[in-house]
């Protein structure tokens, strides 16, 4: 209880606004930081999955090479994850239709596992051709959305962000920042949008779940 409320009959005279602001922002910051870390972690792991598809044996300094090759990638993914993860609950609030479907951590974990699985499949399973691979992944991504999200807003946001991200990647590759081994959709792989979409859904799911949790971590 605040000190002011103890001193007089009418509690909370001036403290609450400041505390509210600090608490809200604190909450937001913590959530953003967690999402950022999730994004960085997923980016590292999934990047590793993609890298190892072509290389089976690594020279001893493989770890350093992985971490140094594209140092800007994990932070980018982390920032994107933080933005998306905050955007989803915010959008839910604005639209006034809170996400209802099975809001539980176990479900979120399931979603993340499926997302990693989709990446795993894209990296490791040998498909006959790229079209099949892309179609399979697209079906899996939509299935992911249906299983774990089922909100129209989530779908729309996912599609928009996936398109934007694909565009950004196209631009990056066009400018020669990095490249894909066998591009089949302009400069990139055609399954990339599906992965982006699944990622957005997953991160949005995490963000929504985090928004449910109140962090009582105050200074």
């Amino acid at each position, binding site marked *: *209880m*605040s000190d002011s*409320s*103890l001193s*007089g*009959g*009418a*509690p*909370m005279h001036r*403290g*609450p606004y400041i*505390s*509210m602001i600090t*608490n*809200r922002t604190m909450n937001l910051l913590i959530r953003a930081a967690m999402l950022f870390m999730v994004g960085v*972690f997923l980016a*590292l*792991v*999934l990047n*590793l*999955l993609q890298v*190892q598809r072509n290389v*089976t*044996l*690594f*020279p*001893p*300094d*493989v*770890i350093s090479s*992985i971490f140094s090759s594209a140092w800007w990638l994990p932070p980018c993914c982390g920032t994107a994850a933080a933005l998306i993860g905050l955007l989803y609950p915010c959008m839910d609030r604005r639209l006034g239709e*809170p996400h*209802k479907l099975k809001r*539980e*951590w*176990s479900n*979120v*974990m*399931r979603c*993340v*596992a*499926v997302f*990693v*699985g989709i990446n*795993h499949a894209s990296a490791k*399973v*040998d*498909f*006959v051709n790229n079209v*099949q691979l892309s179609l*399979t992944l697209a*079906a899996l991504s939509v*299935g992911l959305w249906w299983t774990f999200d089922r909100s129209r807003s989530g779908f729309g946001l996912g599609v928009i962000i996936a398109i934007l991200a694909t565009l950004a990647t196209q631009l990056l590759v066009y400018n020669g920042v990095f490249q894909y081994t066998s591009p089949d959709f302009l400069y990139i792989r055609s399954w990339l949008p599906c992965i982006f979409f699944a990622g957005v859904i997953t991160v949005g799911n995490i963000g929504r779940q985090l*928004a*449910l949790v*109140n962090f*009582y*971590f*105050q*200074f």
Partner: protein
Amino acid sequence: MNEIQEERLRQNISAAFYRHGLLCASYPVPIILFTSASILTCCYPLLKLPLPGTGPVEFTTGVRDYSTPSHESQGDLSERPDWYRGPPVAYIQQVLVKAAVSPWDNSLVPVDVFRSPLGRVFSVLEEIRNHVYTDRSLEALCLQVTDLLPGLRRMQAVLPEHGCLLVSPGNYWQNRRDLFDADPDLLKTVHQHEPKGLHTSATLKDLLFGVPGKQTGVNLYSKKRVVTYTITIALSSYDARFVASLRARLKQLHPSANCTLREDHMVHVHFKEEIGIAELIPLVTTYIILFAYIYFSTRKIDMVKSKWGLALAAVVTVLSSLLMSVGLCTLFGLTPTLNGGEIFPYLVVVIGLENVLVLTKSVVSTPVDLEVKLRIAQGLSNESWSIMKNMATELCIILIGYFTFVPAIQEFCLFAVVGLVSDFFLQMFFFTTVLSIDIRRMELADLNRRLPAEAGMPPPKPGPLRPRETPPPPRPSPHTITLQAPAFRNLRLPKRLRVVYFLARTRLAQRIIMVGTVIWIGILVYTDPAGLRTFLAAQVSEQSPLGEAGLPPHLGVAPVFPGGDPTSTLSGLPAPEPTPLPENQSQGHRAAHPEVAPVSSPQITWGPEDEELWRRLSFRHWPSLFSYYNITLAKRYISILPVIPVTLHLSPQEAIDTRHPQDTHHAPPPSIKTSDLQTDLTLYKVAALGLFAGVVLVLLLFCLYRVLCPRNYGQNGVPHGRRRRGDLPCDEYGYSPPISEISPLLLRGHSMDIECLASDGMLLASCCLVGHIRVWDAQTGDCLTVIPNNGLRRSSSSGCWEHRDGWDHISACEAESLLGADFREPGGGAVGGQDVDIFPIRRRTTPARPALFGDQPDLTPLIDTNFGLSPPSQALSSSGFDFGGLVEKAYQEHEPSPTLAFPPSPPPVLPPELPPQNNGDWDSSVWAMELRGNLIATGRSSGKLELWDAVEGSLRCSNEDGVSGITALAFLNNRIVAARLNGSLDFFTVEITKPLGLLQYRGPPGRGSLPPSPCYSSEDVISCQLTRSVQCAHQKPITVLKAAAGRVVTGSQDHTVRVYRLEDSCCLFTLQGHSGGITAIYIDQTMVLASGGQDGTICVWDVLTGSRVSHVYGHRGDVTSLVCTTSCIISSGLDDLICIWDRSTGIKLYSIQQEVGCGASLGVISESLLVTGGQGCVSFWDLNYGDLLQTVYLGQSSEGQSVRQLLVLDNAAIVCDFGSELSLVYVPSVLEKLD
């Protein structure tokens, strides 16, 4: 048509599940035995499978009839592994050299142990390189390698490039004898390539020496003084005759006596796919996610006897179903080619724990009073349809996956299908049975617990007055209040303490350290189980102090010395030594052996352990050697030929000759320290260091703790521990984001606890235990009217007893202070004559709350004026003077038989002395009150219904048709419904003779389509007619009565809910579904009807059809209140838990733990704002997200008082009743939202 079929199917399924559930619950033990047996049978084929892992697999063939296996598999050779096809990557021929200087001579220095033996490697190498057998040379047969990988520049000087893959210790000196001889410190050269710190794969030393580091004997403290190394040759093709001739030649040159190594077996080693760190990280990630999933899933298991047991059973179910699927697949000849470890997490996620959890929840939410068998059966059949539907959906998805025709996906799908089916089987048999056992145990435990408790408390559920009796809040005695209050106050802590608390609460540091250690060990063990040992051994043996001597690197020194070194030039020459010579030498020395041996002459022995010395190497030895040349051994194999033994004996003279001048400069070894001792010492050192570091860490943490934490850390820490969302309604740290500035308005004036509250949005009426009714303006909080109750003779409500109990022991000590209290009473003198009537009561309460009137707003003038104005009070006052005596009498009457009026569940007993005698109704207490417009309807214990004018405080009309006490009232439009203690229901009509009064409305309509409150003017003549009386509405007392949308709903002790139509008082439905008395009902304008009972269940009904929409088992103990919004149901129970349910699905969204005794008070302000009462405070919650928005404290005097009733007004003010005070809380932002 389809629907009918579907319905029939559904019924069939549900019936089948029901029977199955009965079966499972009836014979638990045989069924568990049966399932265990079937699990074991299905897993039996797994024994044949190789253990998962990345270790190499071996296959041994004979050398004589060896031929390179063809690519096609031959069906007849069943013992051949299927990887044994095609030529190997390489044939490995190792020449194992054991060399020793013998006889050992005391004049020799330690370096001599290995310098000359190592020097001989060059001659052997020369011999091998130059060996020719009928035009075939080594060059033609050996494996040609090209560049090293670009990342290995530092190895370039050591490993061969662009030529035969032939490695030996000579590589350290580029296979040049002159460099070797010029090297002043051999050990440094050997060790300079060793990686510092942790390494998990084969080191360069292992690669070049070809034997484990410990066995080389290349160190200064070797006891045996035998140097062992190998020359490893990789052959690309196998020429039996060439190898044989090489073997013969070497044997001839360096014969090994008593060497009985077998030479007829060739070992093929197959390497599985590499799992490097790069692959390990995703794998570990998936496993972490998997465990998180399992953790979060099993955490949801609730309301069972042993959570852990059931969680374990759930995990066992899933895991064994996976094992069964693999076993079944192998049984039918589908060998798994996928990497099991990789797909396993995904399989678990596909199969999932959901079904198990759904089953548990369904069974748990069946009525508790049923038999266990029936509960299981019912739970199963309730969920049967959804389980079957899910199963079918999953199978469909997998089937679609199967038709992608990607082999890997097909295999995955196959496994998943079998896994799903076996999982279903296990769920149905194994898990259901375990669940039945668990439920049975819980019931036993409950029974045991309940029996003594019920014996101890005679009236656990006093029937008729349930809704009002919900606050039997175990009134916190002063003692507990003083304990609690500081705990709340101290919570505003300095920042640093909060950081420490946070760290301590989450145990962040320990967890991180633990997880880190576990992961590190896991990686270590997984990648290199054998290497760990080698590593430790090597690390220990390399601890020789001389290795670190700061000598210049040999390569820098080597060019300087050759000229000045006589021995090097000498020994540089004998490389092309005549071959017979060493033979003779060794022969001679072996002959000389026996004589000198007793001293400490090194013995060269060959034993069976030397046959396959490569086995002692790390299993990554060969892969890493080949990987340096970018040749992968993954999924391929190499063939290791039998080793060629070579024995070298050197004379001491030779050893002295080959010495480097610096060798003798080495300090004589700190000789007594043998390497064993070294080993021990290093280990001890490491252990001591670790221990020391641990102690220091503990001390440091302890100091930190001492500095940062106060003494009472433990006390404060306890409530913090393991806090979940919404654990405390009154925010632990004292604040939370407020909606805006909210200051509660205190309404004081009642002298006793407030019993009834009623409001129509504009006015607020409250009635206390003594029967005073006060009317307040809901906007401003001004007291408008006081309707005193002068005849307090039969204040026989339960709350009064509670108070009297309290008074009994304080009254003695307060007797002398009575007089003083009189004079301190500020309102007492002003109120005058009337006040004398209630004086005794007030006098008693004042000392308990001395500060009550200290900071009170100016209510006293209001009271004064009202009393002066109110005309009826004069009439009433006449009967009040003998009040004191009456009270005493009433007490005496009630003392001997306090429980008489409220038997637990009796047939309705009328209060024994109903007052037919005198003029007034003052002798009975108010049991129910309703407020509409400016009319207050009160129902009294005497069965009398009265209508009061709220503004003027005058009695407008009364009706005494009934004799049984009115337990609940509903006032809708111009009808009043009264429920009586004897279970009858009376419908009254209020008639106003002057219709004009109905025309004016007071205030805007509140929410939705709520009918506006008509205002009756004071001139109207109001009469109240009993239109209909339903005599036996219920078999037992009516506990709840709610009216809305033209319906009247009653709930009773007889477990039923009845719905009546208001206009014609016709009973529409009798709703049955509860297995206990009804304790809470909610109905609103939209015809949503929900009811909660003593059994803890909540039912949602369709008012139009009378059917049950959903049925959940929510609380342990009674449901005390119920509120619905358009999307969810909020319920609170005697377990002080507030649960929020999804209205359409009946799924519990979340729950909020309330403080003891505050559970019942809750209200919904808007669709998304929930308000709950706490200990002296109210809390606002965001319904959609479950966030605590704000806690408002109601005033300092109310700290210990819990909010017992909570009323939400239309203009979003909240009225709370705590003790004798009311509190008005406005939520302005909500108002804005509504507008």
